[in-house]
């Protein structure tokens, strides 16, 4: 069984596109449509990496990141933000809340997979 990566994005097509790239590289993929949905789906299986959008209705990505890091079980789970946002203040907030990487869309699949390979839990 491959390592599990959770994708959190309100866009169905983005989740599909990221899922194609990850599954093609042998990862299992778990999808969530926003931060609240993602928090509700934690705990079912070990998650080796989370890829999250920033601008989402309901709970946005930075709030989700903050809530995630409050849980001891996910304190060391790496999170990569994948977003159209590139404002320096938003990036700084993400870094401060514990994100391990910030990637802007559109992403090159091989570049994303290289980052995933580098960040994913052993």
């Amino acid at each position, binding site marked *: 069984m491959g390592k599990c990566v959770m994708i959190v994005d309100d*866009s169905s097509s983005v989740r599909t*596109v990221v899922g194609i790239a990850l599954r093609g590289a042998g990862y299992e993929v778990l999808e969530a449509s926003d931060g609240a949905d993602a928090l509700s789906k934690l705990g079912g299986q070990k998650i080796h990496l989370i890829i999250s959008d920033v601008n989402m209705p309901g709970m946005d990505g930075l709030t989700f990141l903050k809530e995630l890091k409050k849980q001891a079980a996910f304190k060391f789970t790496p999170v990569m933000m994948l*977003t*159209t946002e590139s*404002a320096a203040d938003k990036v700084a907030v993400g*870094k401060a809340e514990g994100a391990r*990487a910030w990637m802007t869309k559109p*992403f090159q699949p*091989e570049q994303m997979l290289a980052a995933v390979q*580098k960040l994913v839990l052993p």
Partner: protein
Amino acid sequence: MTPLAERTLQVLGLHPARVNTPVATNHATELAGALCTVWQRQLDATIEHGTSSVDALTKTFAGIERQLAQALELTEQAAKGLKGDGAMSGAIAGANERLNDVMAMIQDAVEANHAMLATVTEAVNAVRELNQTAQSVELISQMTTLLSINARIEAARAGAAGQGFSVVAYEVRRLAAQSRQESVAIMQRVARIEQVIQQAADSAEAQRARDQDLIARSREDARQIVAELGESMNQVMAASDGLCDIGQQTRTSVAMALVSFQYQDRVSQRVSHVRDSVALFAQALSDGWPDEANLEGMDARLLKSYTMPEEGRTHRDEPEPDQSGTGLMLF
């Protein structure tokens, strides 16, 4: 009227001179408010239709990509099977070896028949020797008959003293005649046996010739079959290599398509921000025509609402920079 206000009215297609009256201002406000409402609805519909279309297209693409991945996996497995250890080329070599073993067994069987032919030939020779023996016996009986005749002649010459000898000579002659009859019968039977055995030997010899011919033709057929099979396998391997190349090209195309699909997300966000700015403008109009400070405040709020750098550049009518950044920051 400030230059900013004039510019705003010009954008709306309203002449400042005609608008700068209380009645005209109310009408313009109503018109602008109505237009903003329509524009918001149109933008919402655009976002919804665009998102649902791209979502459906992405899902269809994902299905096609899965099928391609399965086809490519099968192709790569087949290619590995053709070229790896215990592969088809090895199977052909094994089949060739087994065919050679079968041909060798056939050859052994044929040679066993030939050994039997040799035995038959020996039997023919033995029968001929037997015939010669029978002929010798015939000759001996003839000579014995002559001898008995001579004995009777001498016995007659001996007169009364030779009578007993004459009887013996007569019996010898009778035995010689009997022996001669038996030897004739033996020679006739031996001749018959020799005839039958010779026929068997002739048949075996003819069969031997046919067997050799059949073995030669079978070897050639087997060699040709294995060669044709090898040629077919080479063509299959070449086709498999071609499919693997196409698979790699397809993977590259899929990666490019994945990048293209992501632009829908950016387009959707940009259109959403335009809708929000229309709503902002409609709200500002409902509070009365904005003055210069309010317009500049709106300008600042619009700039702050953007999430992508190019939105700000477009707002300020700045050129797009060279897109050579990696888009990834690791912390």
